[in-house]
């Protein structure tokens, strides 16, 4: 009897929420248009592998060896010579101005020094841009090592040294084969897309629900709702369901675009991802509702969601690796459902693993969703008294 009544009230509340969502057409359009815009922009914009770094060259030798070396750097695809200068000073100025990211300075008499075995070059890197620097550093180091080895073996052979070395012909005794699992070509989109879906979904879901309760409070309709026999838990659930449907539609849409348009491979079980996504959406909405129940005004709710978005972007493992973070910032990340979902969606989409590997993250999401909803309802109840 009680349950029947509760269901009836719930239906009425859900009806109210649905009508409210449908009436505000412009917001509804934004719900669907924004994820699309974000997905397309990022998918096309983000390039993680930095190649073709603009490079300035000062060649004070202008002999065969120096030209060879510059050629070796260019052939690697990591460096594009875009400027030629006379001295180091000019290169530094170009890096100051941001015109180039890398400077290569070859001192005079390069060929002679190399033959004597004491050649050296100076490579300047723009240390204000971390992506470029790290790529450039590794590439430059590796190319110089190789080039240097080639020179040595060539010279040793020329000097008529041992025949065993001749057999080397400049190739190394150990061949390192690197195989990148799940993403053999290091395609940026395969890295980015699953995490991006998680990020976009969390944004929609949290911002959406964060205003839900506080808006009613600001416009005074909360009082009217409280005057009805509806209980806090029912109000929370009613707020949840229509928003959840919108979010699920969003999820299906961006996932479909990711797989069919951007051709990101989907290795795992789509139904498993579907189920866990719903869990993730509910957790996110729970978090939003907690914010909404705490906030005094829409403004505060908005400030809080902005913070959560930044935290989500930087601490959940979407962009920056969590393994290198100190424990306390990892713990902060643990308060966001996205942390668990990034692992889940990468696991299912990219690695193709199943629940056997993902059970702990899935369980955590389930617990998270329950606790968040309970807290939201509890706060609302406390506000009543």
């Amino acid at each position, binding site marked *: 009897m009680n349950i029947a009544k509760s269901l009836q009230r719930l239906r009425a509340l859900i009806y109210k929420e649905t009508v409210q969502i449908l009436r505000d057409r412009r917001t509804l359009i934004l719900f669907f248009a924004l994820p699309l815009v974000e997905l397309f922009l990022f998918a096309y914009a983000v390039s993680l592998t930095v190649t073709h770094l603009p490079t300035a060259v000062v060649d004070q030798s202008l002999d065969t060896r120096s030209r060879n070396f510059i050629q070796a750097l260019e052939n690697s695809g990591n460096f594009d010579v875009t400027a030629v200068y006379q001295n180091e000073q000019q290169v530094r100025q170009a890096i100051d101005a941001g015109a180039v990211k890398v400077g290569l300075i070859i001192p005079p008499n390069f060929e002679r020094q190399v033959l004597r075995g004491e050649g050296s070059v100076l490579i300047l890197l723009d240390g204000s841009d971390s992506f470029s620097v790290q790529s450039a550093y590794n590439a430059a180091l590796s190319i110089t090592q190789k080039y240097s080895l080639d020179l040595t073996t060539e010279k040793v052979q020329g000097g008529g040294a041992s025949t065993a070395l001749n057999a080397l012909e400049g190739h190394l005794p150990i061949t390192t084969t690197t195989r990148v699992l799940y993403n053999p070509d290091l395609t940026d989109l395969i*890295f980015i897309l699953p995490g991006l879906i998680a990020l976009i979904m969390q944004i929609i879901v949290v911002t959406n629900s964060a205003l839900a309760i506080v808006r009613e409070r600001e416009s005074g309709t909360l009082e009217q709702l409280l005057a009805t026999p509806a209980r806090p838990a029912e109000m929370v659930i009613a707020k949840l369901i229509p928003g959840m449907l919108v979010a699920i539609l969003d999820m299906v849409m961006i996932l479909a675009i990711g797989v069919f348009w951007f051709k990101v491979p989907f290795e795992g079980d789509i139904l498993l991802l579907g189920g866990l996504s719903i869990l993730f959406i509910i957790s996110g909405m729970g978090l939003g509702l907690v914010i909404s129940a705490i906030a005094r*005004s829409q403004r505060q709710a908005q400030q809080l969601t902005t913070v959560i978005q*930044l935290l989500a972007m930087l601490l959940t493992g979407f962009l920056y690796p969590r393994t290198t973070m100190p424990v306390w910032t990892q713990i902060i990340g643990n308060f966001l459902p996205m942390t668990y979902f990034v692992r889940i969606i990468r696991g299912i989409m990219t690695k193709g693993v199943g629940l056997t590997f993902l059970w702990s993250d899935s369980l955590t999401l389930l617990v998270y969703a329950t606790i968040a909803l309970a807290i939201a309802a509890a706060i609302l109840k406390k506000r009543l008294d």
Partner: protein
Amino acid sequence: MIQRILAIIQKEFSQAWRDRTTLAIILTIPLLQLIIFGYAINTNVTHIPTVVADQSLDQASRAYLDAMVNSGYFDVVATAPDQASAIRNIDEGQAHVGIVIPPDFEKNILRGDAQVLILVDGSDYFTSQSANAFATIIGQEYAIRIVYAEIAQAGAQASGTSLPALNALIHVLYNPDMKTLWFIIPGMAAMLLQTQSLALTAAAVVREREMGTIEQILVTPIRPIELMVGKIVPYVIIAMLNMLTVIAIGVFWFGVPFQGSFWLFSGLSFLYVFSGLGLGLVISSVSQNQRQAQQLMMLFMMVSLLLGGFIFPRYTMPAVVRLVGNLFPITYFVPIARGIVTKGIGFSVLSGQVIALVIYIVVVMFLATITFRKRLD
């Protein structure tokens, strides 16, 4: 006109002051974020959890693994009998890198055709990138050392050769130790300020509209442009306070050196927060309710963060995407912040960005006024 603007400023101030909780949140949030992110973000991935499948177990394989571990980039967390179980370890997420050394490693080195297989977890970008690069370089270094040793043994040393023939001195300008914090902090200040200034004004006009107080303002002789300027000024002060505290924490707490002119930086920060607040006002004027304003603000925030050059380098982006990035003030301020704080360069090099910001402010204030006025009719 000045008088009317002053009146609006006073109103905004007392409104902000009355809501102390929000004010406190606004002033402390960027600080907290800076501290959290300052500690959290480390793009130099070291100590990557590694699983090793050493099927040789001879002296050479151990020496090779030692070279890997001593580099500091790889931490052996598990051993596996073969490649399949190493992959399983990576599937489970226990390790991000697997090193597989096939049998007879030592013998094969002597024959000059030894193989090592490095497995890298390709689902995490930074880790796989670092692992890939460092495994290659360290492996190569190790192999080259063997070659040089052989050459030395063969008596090349006697002919007066020193090895290796070529050394590269790599100087990382401005940040010789490649400290992530030095990379991150200036851009992060730009990012936090962009977020903050957008959030401050995105709700400013639309809230008055929702509350109905906009009608009251409209019946006064105040003109739209005066309203816009009046709304921005108090927030410029708040945002400048934010900027100063963020930079102070970066310099004094995190020890990031400030190379350039502080006054130039402050002056340009002023232009920057002004343009961000202006953009927020445009959002506020086009939106019908706070919910829309917030959705739009989130979009602008995300897009500006990812396209503004703070996280990903802009020169790798396609031209169209770069143009979209040009719509946000952060795109102009990231080079300014990095230029002044990290590089220590002056106005002459940055004049392009400065002019862009000035034009930006004029255009954005004009847009905010126009959209607001259109709404009036």
